[in-house]
Every structure is written in structure tokens, then in C-alpha cells.
């Protein structure tokens, strides 16, 4: 005998709308939380991965986990600059930028009541810094002039902090800095930075040493040779990393924190939703006992009944998953700015929905439906025809 048609399961859900809506909305909420937390972790990682370019190399002091902690003296910087693996620009200059990175405390917008500050990265740049980061584009004002107390700010900072609009001034290091431009670095960490001239920044903070070196490889396969040359040189206590790897490492702690948080939350939450599905399905079975008996008498087999009820609960899960994802997808328009524990500085990123997350959320939703439906469906399929028909 053929299987029970799909419309049977569908109509049953429709018949008891209130119950169906309540069960589905419970599941949708769980899927929503599940996918939003994953989207947050994915967005953070994507932002930091896109910050690096594959043929750039970052050099920092050994054991330093971020540029702020690192220190590189001028002599070491010159040794690295002389490496044969460093690419040359079209004027023959080496494609390397010696940069200084510090954190300054700025006030966030919208928290007038508290005096809360957040740490913003200030990067002292050289002329070569720009061609090394093609993602960075000026969107307002002009570029800063070398040798002056001018800065340009990333658009996430311009949006989220007070006193960093065009032509506004900032005070640090006993100097006044004028914001002359706003740049857009797309979905990268640079959008959460302030850039100034490296010599001016170092002077203002009374520093004589750089924080990091960034150079472009002549060709991508040279990385191992360059790394070996830097790390084996007894004069240097530096280490070299692919820029992509360097930024990816910075997202590790936060992304892991978010994933663990998300997974443990949703596992607990899903218990609630599974119970909801179970209650719904048990009562669906109980109120349809006579119907099940009739179906069996008509010749449908036990496994047909089992399948029909499982389909019903899978439909519940599917609808819940679909709705949860639908609402979660709107979160993509929101970008959040928070401190990255690892670098201790502000970072803005967007919730990002990836195909992987869609798949995981759907599997998760269907699994909730399945687990919730399996026991009630088994009960339905195990009924004896005579007993089932006898109940009225």
C-alpha cells in the first residue's frame, strides 16, 4: 500500500493552528538564537580575515600577540627591509611600511551618562602603508599630509565615537590633531582605526621604536624563505606571519567564546523546543486514535503511520527553522562594535549569514522536530487496530 499522502500531515497541522503556531514559534526562536550567535562569530572572523592580504607579511616581536605589545627598533627594521624577498614599488622603493600602533581612549556616542571610554587603535603610517592596503579608500575630506598633525579616521570610528567628525580636533600627546579625512576600509578591521603620520605619532608619544613592519612579498611562494631569514637571524628577535594569519589569530579567542556560548545556549534552549514539539505530537496522536485505527483498517502499515507522524513533526521543525532563519537574515543589516578581548581595542563587524550557517540551522531545526516526534510517532504506529477503533 502506498504511503500516507503529505497533505494528510499538512492538514493536521493546519487544523490545530494555535498549537502549531505556538510550537513553531518556540522552535523559530531557538533557531534564531542559534543562527544569530553563529552569524556573530562568522562576522567577526570574516572581518579580521579580510583585513589581511595574502601576499603581505607582518613582522612583530617574538611572543607578542598583537601589534600594540610588539616593539621593533630601527636597526632591526632596516635589516628586514634589506631582505631580497621584499617587493619593490614602481619607483624602486621597498614595499614596506614601518608602523607605530597605540591605543587611545575615546568616548563612545550615545552613552552620555557614563564616562565610559573605549580603546581605539591609532596607527602611525608611512607612504607605503596605503598601497599595501588597497581596501582603504577615502570617502570624505582629503588624505593627511606627511609631517603634520593631521589624522584620517575609519568610518566605523567616525560613526560610533564622539568628536571624530571632519575638521574636529583630538588632543593627545600635548598636541592637537585635526581630522582631515574619513576612510572606508570595507568590512575590515582598519575601519575601526585612526591613522596619522608615523613620525608625528611616535614623536607625540615620545617613542623611538616601531611596533610592527608590514611588507609585500615579491611573489607569494617567498614566504617561507623570508620567515626563515627573519627568525633565524641572531640579530633579530622577531617573528613573521602572513597578514591573513596574523589577523585570523586575533579573532580566535572571541570567535571561540561566541561559538561556545552559542552552542551551549542553544542546546539548553532546544530542550524546551523539543519538549514543545513532543507535547504537540503526543496530543496529536491521542486525539486521533480512532483515525489511526481507521487508517490501519484501510490497509496502511505501521511504518506508514510512523512516517506520517514523523513527517508532521519534521514539518513543524522545518517551518520553525525557516522562520528563525528568515528573521535572523535581517540581522545582517546590523553592525556591532565591541572590544576584541585579544587586542583590547575596538572592532566593528557585521552579522554574516553564510551557507554553512543556513545548513547547520536547518539541520538543527529538523533534528529538533525529529527528536520531538519520534516517541509519539512510535506510539501511534504501535497501536492495535481493534483497540484504536474502540476509542471514540
Amino acid at each position, binding site marked *: 500500500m502506498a504511503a500516507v499522502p503529505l497533505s494528510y500531515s499538512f492538514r493536521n497541522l493546519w487544523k490545530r493552528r494555535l498549537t502549531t503556531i*505556538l510550537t513553531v*514559534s518556540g522552535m523559530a526562536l531557538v533557531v534564531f538564537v542559534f543562527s544569530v550567535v553563529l552569524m556573530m562569530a562568522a562576522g567577526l572572523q570574516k572581518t579580521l580575515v579580510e583585513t589581511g592580504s595574502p601576499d603581505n607579511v607582518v613582522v612583530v616581536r617574538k611572543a607578542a600577540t598583537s601589534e600594540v605589545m610588539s616593539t621593533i627598533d630601527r636597526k632591526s627594521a632596516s635589516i628586514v627591509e634589506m631582505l631580497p624577498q621584499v617587493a619593490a614599488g614602481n619607483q624602486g622603493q621597498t614595499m614596506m611600511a614601518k608602523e607605530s600602533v597605540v591605543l587611545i*581612549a575615546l568616548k563612545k556616542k550615545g552613552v552620555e551618562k557614563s564616562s565610559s*571610554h573605549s580603546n581605539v587603535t591609532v596607527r602611525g603610517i608611512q607612504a607605503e602603508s596605503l598601497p599595501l592596503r588597497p581596501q582603504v579608500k577615502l570617502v570624505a575630506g582629503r588624505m593627511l599630509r606627511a609631517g603634520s598633525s593631521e589624522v584620517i579616521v575609519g568610518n566605523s570610528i567616525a560613526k560610533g565615537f564622539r568628536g571624530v567628525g571632519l575638521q574636529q580636533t583630538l588632543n593627545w600627546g600635548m598636541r592637537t590633531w585635526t581630522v582631515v579625512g574619513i576612510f572606508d576600509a570595507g568590512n575590515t578591521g582598519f575601519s575601526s582605526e585612526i591613522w596619522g603620520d608615523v613620525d608625528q605619532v611616535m614623536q607625540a608619544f615620545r617613542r623611538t621604536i616601531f611596533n610592527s613592519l608590514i611588507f609585500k612579498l615579491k611573489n607569494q611562494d617567498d614566504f617561507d624563505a623570508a620567515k626563515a631569514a627573519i627568525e633565524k637571524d641572531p640579530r633579530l628577535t622577531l617573528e613573521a606571519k602572513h597578514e591573513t594569519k596574523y589577523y585570523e589569530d586575533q579573532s580566535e579567542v572571541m570567535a571561540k567564546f561566541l561559538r561556545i556560548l552559542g552552542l551551549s*545556549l542553544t542546546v539548553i534552549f532546544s530542550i524546551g523546543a523539543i*519538549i514543545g514539539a*513532543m507535547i504537540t505530537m503526543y*496530543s496529536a496522536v491521542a486525539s486521533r486514535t480512532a483515525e489511526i485505527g481507521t487508517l490501519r483498517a484501510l490497509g496502511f502499515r505501521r511504518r506508514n503511520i510512523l512516517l506520517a507522524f514523523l513527517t508532521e513533526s519534521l514539518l513543524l521543525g522545518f517551518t520553525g527553522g525557516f522562520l528563525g532563519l528568515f528573521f535572523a537574515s535581517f540581522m545582517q543589516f546590523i553592525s556591532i562594535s*565591541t572590544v576584541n578581548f585579544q587586542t583590547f581595542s575596538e572592532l566593528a563587524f557585521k552579522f554574516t549569514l553564510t551557507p554553512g550557517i543556513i545548513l547547520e540551522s536547518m539541520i538543527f531545526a529538523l533534528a529538533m522536530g525529529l527528536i520531538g516526534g519520534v516517541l509519539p510517532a512510535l506510539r501511534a504506529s504501535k497501536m492495535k487496530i481493534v483497540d484504536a477503533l474502540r476509542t471514540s
Partner: protein
Amino acid sequence: MMLLKILFRNAFHNKLRSFLTILGIAVAILAFGLLRTVISSFYAGVEAASTSRLVTRNAISIIFPLPISYTEKIRQVEGVRMVSYGNWFGGIYINEKNFFPNFCVEPRTYLALYPEFVLEEKQKKAFLADRKGAVAGQKLAAKYGWKIGDPITLKGTIYPGNWDFVLRAIYTGRDNTVDETQYFFHWTYFNEEIKKIWPRYAEQVGFYMIGVTRPDIAPDVALNIDKAFKSSLAETLTETEKAFNLGFIAMAEAIVTAIQMVSFVVIFIIMAVVANTMAMTTRERTGDYAIMKTLGFGATDITILIFGEALVVTLTGAAIGIVLTFPVAKAFGQQLSTYFPVFLVSAQTIYMDIAAAFLIAFFAAIIPTRHAIRIRIADGLRRIG
């Protein structure tokens, strides 16, 4: 009495469904309680901070140091009782996974400023006498199995090299809100070593801890300290320890807000589940309600019955959830002591649990009650099952 009996009979009429619903509520209340505890432990450092202590740091940001020579000038500000200072060291033990807060301080004044760190007199003397000595919190020492006299090596992330210490004292908290995972050592030892590797960074401190004579003058003292260093190379920013700690949390505000929102989502989820259960029970009992109406019971009686039943179910579940919160929070706190040194279920959390239970019961009962009241007697009686 009669009413209560009916309510319980009704609530447990369908055993399987009641059991499932109560289980769901218990899990949800447990999750809600844990999430609230996570949030309150974020703020544990703020709660534990004293209002009579001030923190002075470089106005540019926390990563810039201040000269040690400020000590005397700060001491001269009126209302200052005691000045201590220190540096965030940021060392790692064996590898990066073993994170705990570690810093160097001027030990005599620091311990005097923190009476909540309780040290045995003998150990305290030994620590003060040994320049390479270090103090660890009891939880931290227990985690790595350190005993008094053990050598400890930290690898510097900010200050390069391997730094050797000898554990001279283990402190315990005055009460259970004190963070027992800190590690600190002599600033002089740090300064001598820094002189060798980076002479430019010597004679500098990351922060000053200041004790004031009376808590109410703390804001004025803070202003006066900052005024003393205005227009100098290293301007200062002074705030109460509470505000200083709050500043760190404000940075991660987005995360805290997200957890807060999620904790309410779980209440919505369980609300849907309980509403579903209530909808089913009332549907099954439509005939009963019709009979009650025939007998002369009014809408109020039926409302009381349905709301009462919802309350019986949710409160039973909530009670189980609350009882479970304590052992689970304890196990959770032990696992995550690196992130949350103090993980305690507060009384406020319990009140919120109970409030949530009432809220769930109330909202879950609204729609079914409306149905039950509106149904006409004839329709109700006609309906079967």
C-alpha cells in the same frame, strides 16, 4: 482548599504532558538563572570595588605608563591617605591557555589598601622580605597545584623573557565575592629587570591605587589629582575603582547586552510551550467548562481555574529549576573560573526567576481563557473529546 485540590487534579490530569511541561519550565528557568548569573558575574568586579579607592592612569589610554615620580605629588593632594602603584604584567604560565591576571605592585601599601586579601602573617612577612616573591590567590594556587616555596616562571608577552618567581604567600578572600585568581609580585623586581632590557621603560608605573580618607570626598580628590598633572607630558585620569572597573565592562557592552537579550528569549520560548499545553488542556476540557457554566459558575470561576492551573504547572517547574540552579552554577563556575573568578547566584536572580514564572503562567493562560469563556454552552456540550 477545594480549589487547590481541583487545580492540582487538573494540572496533573495528563501525567505525560504535565511532566514534559514541568521539565521544560525547569530547564528554561535553569537557563535563565545561569544567564543572569553570567551577567552579574561580569559585574562582580564592580560590586567588589571599594568606593574609597581611586585609580589613576594615563589619560591617553591604559597602555601608556606614568612616571614613578608622581607618587610624592599624589601623596600631597589633600584627602589622600595612602598611595600604591603597579603595572599590568600580562605574563603567561607555560602557554597562552593558562590565563590569569598578574601584575607587579608596591606590596606594603597595596596589601594595606586591600584588606579583603587575607594573608597569613608569616607568609606575608616572607613575601615582603623576598624581592622575587609572589602572591597567588587560593583558587589560582589550587588550579595549578602550587604550594608555598614553589618556583614559578611566567613568560612575558609585553615584557620579553622568562620571569622567575618564588611563591611566598597564598591569599584568601575576606568573603566569597573576592576574586581569588590574582597573582602579584614586587614592583621593584620588575623595575630592576626592565632597567636591564629596556632602560627607557624603567621607573614607570601603569596605574596608581589611591586610598582616600573618606569615601565622600573621593570625587574631589580625583579632580585635584588630575589638576596637578594638567598640561604635563603624562596627563592623568583618576576615577573611583568602581568606575574604572565599570569602564572595562562598558567596552564589552555589546556582549553583555546580547546575553541579556538572549536570557529573555528563553522565557519567550517556554511561554510558547506552556501556552500550548494550556491550550490543549482547555480544549480537552471544553465539555467540563460547559457543564460548569450550566451549573451557574461564571467567567471569573473559569478564569481562576485556568490561571490557577497554569500557575501550579509553572511554579512547580520553576521551583525545580531554582533548586537545580545552585549545584549547576557551582559546577559551571569551576569550569569557567578563568573567565568568571566570582560566580555566585544572587538573591536578585532568584527573584527574577520567580517573576519570570508568574509572567509565563499569566501570558500562557490568556488565550485559552478567552476561548473557554467565549464558548457557548450548547457548543461546548456538543463537542466530544
